[in-house]
């Protein structure tokens, strides 16, 4: 049986002002079948091994605070070929990165009684 030749697509996602973000990467073949799902490294890079000799759609979805929200490119790979794709993302101008938030902290058993002194911690990724 003849071994299929294998190439790769190197995808790099760059934010316009720097910082570390993870981007979701999808690869679809000419039959519109998903052949890869993954995320980029902290530096925004991922190498996707593919079977050459087909036309592939590379789709990248950005984090919520970036735009465009998603972008696609089509590539046709030669046998054992390597293709490099760069995608540039910027801060979504219509969604503020952050906004000033007020917090109210009271005693549960004495409704409205303010907590005189303390700290609240908000942590992402632990829910």
């Amino acid at each position: 049986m003849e071994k299929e030749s294998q190439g790769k697509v190197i995808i790099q996602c760059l934010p316009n002002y720097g910082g570390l973000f993870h981007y979701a990467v999808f690869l679809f073949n000419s039959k519109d079948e998903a052949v890869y799902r993954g995320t980029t490294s902290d530096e925004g890079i991922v190498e996707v091994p593919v079977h050459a000799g087909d036309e592939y759609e590379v789709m990248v979805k950005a984090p919520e605070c970036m735009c465009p929200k998603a972008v696609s490119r089509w590539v046709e790979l030669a046998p054992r070929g390597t293709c490099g794709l760069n995608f540039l993302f910027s801060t979504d101008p219509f969604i503020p990165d952050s906004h000033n938030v007020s917090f109210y902290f009271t005693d549960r058993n004495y409704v409205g009684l303010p907590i005189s002194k303390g700290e609240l911690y908000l942590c992402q990724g632990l829910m």
Partner: protein
Amino acid sequence: MPRPYVINITNGTGSERVLNGDYSVATNVTGYDNTSVQPATQTIAAGTDTYAFTVAATGTLTLHVTEDGTAGGTPVVGAAFARCDSGGTTYGPAVTSDASGNAVFSYVPFAETGAPLIYYKQTASDGDHEFNPALVNTTMTASTQTIEVTNSLAALRTIALTDGNYANLPIETGTITLS
């Protein structure tokens, strides 16, 4: 992953610039049960700039009301107290002394060191005893604590009733009502 946000709370409020997203919530409040914070998760969303949280304490403060302010004194039944903030505003239902003279505040904060002040004031006695209505405070270093409170018997007063047109002519019988 963004860094955790630390919001310093003073007198019930704090503010911070926070990215939209889903967060788990934790607290550090001396004297309270930090595992009791609610809600335990919070979504910060665009367009919503105010969020409220609560936390609970587990201590018990007993006010023992007697005529002489001692553990063995005559209990005063029906003395009412309210939990307050430092400005004297009351919160929660009033507590009233029972047949043993005990009025109990449940769910109050305590800590070996650094416990917050607990403000309270007496709002009524039983009608036959004097009381001090001033705002007072205490701290609790243990989960239970008893404070002796004095409600003295009302002083004996002499009331004179005389005829308005014949100076000092006593009214033989009658009643005066003070309300």
